[in-house]
């Protein structure tokens, strides 16, 4: 239509995101046989509102789940292995769930799973913070290209991509509206027609 259009493709819209989260919530409850031992740790930035939304859904499914006390956020900046390949990152907030993580089933929540390095850092951070019974991983999008032996337990959408593409999750809390978009895709001209 026009060359001015940004070269991106929307792969999930607001309803898709909502549906994916609901499905993940059910899978978490199913997998843990109830949510009473589950705590959620959102990984900033967009893992935090995703964890918040998951918490609300878990509470709706299992009233034994406290969506406030079982919710936390985990900044992994100081555990990253790529710090000195990049400009200095601001250190984010780490807030453990009020109920703690010892003996709990910790579900890490992130927006996009890619190389797995963030999750590696998160696992190191968790082991410094306590001793959960189990750690599971939920992500809205798994775009592949893992560099470490890490796989998600709960996935909103598997998205095959090439390494030069960018996958962006946008959330109402931060970006104004929910969507998942891919940019830099070679076949963009065709798709946006």
């Amino acid at each position, binding site marked *: 239509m026009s060359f001015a259009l940004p070269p991106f493709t929307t792969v999930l819209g607001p309803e898709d995101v909502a549906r994916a989260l609901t499905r993940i919530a059910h899978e978490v409850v199913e997998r843990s046989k109830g949510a009473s031992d589950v705590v959620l740790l959102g990984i900033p930035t967009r893992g935090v509102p995703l964890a918040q939304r998951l918490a609300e859904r878990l509470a709706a499914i299992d009233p034994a789940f406290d969506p406030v006390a079982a919710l936390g956020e985990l*900044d992994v900046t*100081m*555990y990253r292995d790529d*710090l*000195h*390949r*990049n*400009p*200095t*990152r*601001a*250190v*984010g*907030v*780490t807030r453990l769930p009020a109920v703690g993580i010892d003996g709990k089933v910790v579900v890490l929540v992130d927006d996009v799973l890619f190389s797995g390095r963030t999750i590696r850092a998160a696992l*190191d951070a968790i082991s*410094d*913070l306590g001793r959960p019974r189990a750690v599971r991983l939920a992500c809205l999008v798994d775009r592949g290209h893992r560099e470490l032996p890490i796989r998600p337990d709960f996935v909103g959408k598997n998205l095959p991509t090439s390494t030069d593409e960018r996958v962006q999750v946008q959330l109402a809390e931060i970006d104004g509206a929910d969507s998942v978009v891919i940019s830099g895709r070679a076949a963009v001209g065709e798709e946006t027609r």
Partner: protein
Amino acid sequence: MKHLLSAQDLTRDEAILLLDTAAQMAATQSREIKKLPTLRGRTVVNLFFEDSTRTRISFETAAKRLSADVINFSAKGSSVSKGESLKDTALTLHAMGADAVVVRHWASGAPHQLAHAGWLDAAVLNAGDGTHQHPTQALLDAFTIRRHLAGGTGDLAGLRVAIVGDVLHSRVARSNVHLLRTLGADVTLVSPPTLLPVGVETWPCATSYDLDATLADWKPDAVMMLRVQRERMSGGAGAFFPSALEYSRRYGLDHRRLAVLPDHTIVMHPGPMNRGLEISAQAADSDRSVIVEQVANGVAVRMAALYLLLAGGSSAEGTSI
């Protein structure tokens, strides 16, 4: 910013980033496992040309909590007895591959020279130079004030800080005046006229010779007492004030002056204290005193400084602070 040499060099945004980062570092220090892997493989040298066990331990703790390798290099020698030269020491550290050098020196400007003379390409952190600067002390003071009086976030706009004592010889005062002003606080220096430097009139602060009037009329939110070195009152004709008794009568923080302070006002001291001289035991140990907390905050602030100077990409390219 590649180095941390002077509190005067910090912009408001840089200072707030340092304080915010320090807040996150402080949060990690209440955990059972306090060590973070962040600076694994980095080497921090504590280069102390002047004894200061407290500051050295604080930097050493900060670096170790971030998993850096720490080498303590105590270069004895003073202005009187010169030891190894600054240049040779710097070349040695360069050869050893130091990533950061924390330097305490009796000579004003020595950290500046280390950073800029081309002897060394490590990040330089000033841990106190002569009567010039002690930027991490000012940062930990600002951090402590912010935590108690500004809700732990943002700047210090509108807060009043009285800095009392030997301003002339104080790197703590020089650092604090500029940083507190950068963060929006108002500062009054209270000192005997002999202990205010000629030229102080250009500093971004007010000055007073009268502690009682400052406390009663200006109602500071924080009162920072500076250490008075006992040698300042010796030296016969060159003494800066007549006696310890007269000094503490006019400029010491005692129970009487403590009682005048507004309820929320905190009492600070960079340590080590001369109890009974610039601060009475009651004042030092009162509920208002945050002196012990300043020490703890020192570790968090130094972790933040090391993190921001060292964690990012090649430090030579500079970082966001």
